[in-house]
């Protein structure tokens, strides 16, 4: 969850010693510390121009917010004074749009009109005028080091819960990898400080694109009985030696389903190179 704190007065942020969030969480602690050594949040930044402080909270079973519950942000100033600030979580459900077309990692031979379809039943549950909802569809193209914006569309919720966008062939370049994002956005007219966004994404390729993420099959003759994922940056500077970073796989539970480990390994390596 993204938490943005706007300070109205100059110097307020600088006088803060600690910030915490308290309330009833799913299973665990009743307080989350946002800053300092005990922080459980990722510090995203401080914008001195707008006086906005941003944190990202990783929600898990320990820190599950509850719909309709009130939580308290507590600011402890360096002079010892405490200032509480209450906010309400309007909708704590984490329900992501489900992209049904095209298939993940689908390969298109050449640039062409591509239909993207998704379902998302959540929007149809609000019809009381208190929620303003929309979908933001975003197409990005992979570049040397990241993804760049290419094309977008905004849609309003449909009663069918089925959505469709056609990416025009003119927006696509041959021999490229693309990522589409579908983001559900909800503003709450009676709780304007709470803003819900849930985003899902999938990739597809156009033309003769070679993915830098590869699954290498097991090769007992070469000395290994299991497959492994590799990722390499094609555009890395060849004037310097490169290092191989090993990301060992760990799963929370044992399993007899090898596909479970394949999926976990792909997630591990993707999160690894995203991070570095």
């Amino acid at each position, binding site marked *: 969850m993204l938490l943005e704190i706007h300070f109205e007065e100059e110097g307020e942020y600088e006088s803060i010693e600690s910030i915490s969030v308290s309330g009833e969480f799913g299973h665990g602690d009743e307080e989350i510390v946002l800053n300092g*050594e005990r922080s*459980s949040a990722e510090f995203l930044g401080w914008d001195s121009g707008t006086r906005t402080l941003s944190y990202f909270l990783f929600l898990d079973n320990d820190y599950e917010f509850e719909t309709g519950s009130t939580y308290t942000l507590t600011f402890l100033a360096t002079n010892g004074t405490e200032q509480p600030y209450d906010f309400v979580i309007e909708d704590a459900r984490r329900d992501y749009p489900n992209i049904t077309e095209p298939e993940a990692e689908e390969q298109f031979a050449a640039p062409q009109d591509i239909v993207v379809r998704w379902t998302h039943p959540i929007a149809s549950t609000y019809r009381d005028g208190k929620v303003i909802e929309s979908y933001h569809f975003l197409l990005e193209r992979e570049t040397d080091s990241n993804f760049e914006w290419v094309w977008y569309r905004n849609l309003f919720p449909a009663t069918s819960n089925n959505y469709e966008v056609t990416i025009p062939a003119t927006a696509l370049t041959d021999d490229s990898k693309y990522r589409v994002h579908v983001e559900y956005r909800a503003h709450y007219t009676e709780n304007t400080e709470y803003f819900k966004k849930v985003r899902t994404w999938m990739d597809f390729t156009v033309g003769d694109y070679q993915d830098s993420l590869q699954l290498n099959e097991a090769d007992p003759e070469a000395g290994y009985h*299991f497959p492994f994922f590799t*990722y390499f940056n094609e555009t890395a500077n060849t004037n310097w030696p490169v290092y*191989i970073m090993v990301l060992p796989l760990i799963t929370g539970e044992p399993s007899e389903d090898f596909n479970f480990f394949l999926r976990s*390994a792909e997630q591990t390596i993707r999160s690894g190179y995203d991070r570095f």
Partner: protein
Amino acid sequence: MFLCPVFPRPPIEAYVPCLDHETLKLTDPPELIRIDLQLIAMVNVFRNHLEEKGFEVAKRLFFEGYSGSAAFSIRFAFIHPELVEAFSAGHCAGWPILPISDYEGKAVNYPLGISDLFELTGKAFNIEALREVKAFLYAGSADDNFHFDDDYLNLAIEILGSEANVIWPNASQIYQENGLNNITVRLYEGLNHSTTAPAAIPDVVQFFRDALSVSSRNSLF
């Protein structure tokens, strides 16, 4: 350049992804024999692939892991220190491996110590090579998610303690006493198993940036 081996975690006594002592002893199924050596074979294939693409590939490896995958990382580094340039390991399944073979007259066996490392791996413990490895170990002081193994649990508690906020300072002291000043230990105050990993990301990234900046071209050969 990243590599993730798909070693499974089957429902057997050996904790395979942690490269524990039972894993190193496995003879059945044959696919699970010495996964550390299997990983080295995978690395060689990837290295050849990169070299064919024109990359000059450093001989030694980076490892990054948290929890069980950190246990794998640090244990691999203790077995094959000559292959590791740097590793970051958070939590390490509770008790990190120590560079000692006995404690008050008791053998400290792998994966708590290195007493039987040669019997398990055919390799003697090479502390000189390990001193050349850059290492960042970390844990949350409120992390109570331990992997219990009766084979070494009591001795681990006796040597290091039973809570993270004493285990890691004690481990750090033992590393220092054995000349492993290359191992940095950081304890994140008040954080638990879920919250430590994300909180540590900036430090982990910085650790590898620093490791890259000081790693010389000598590591190529």
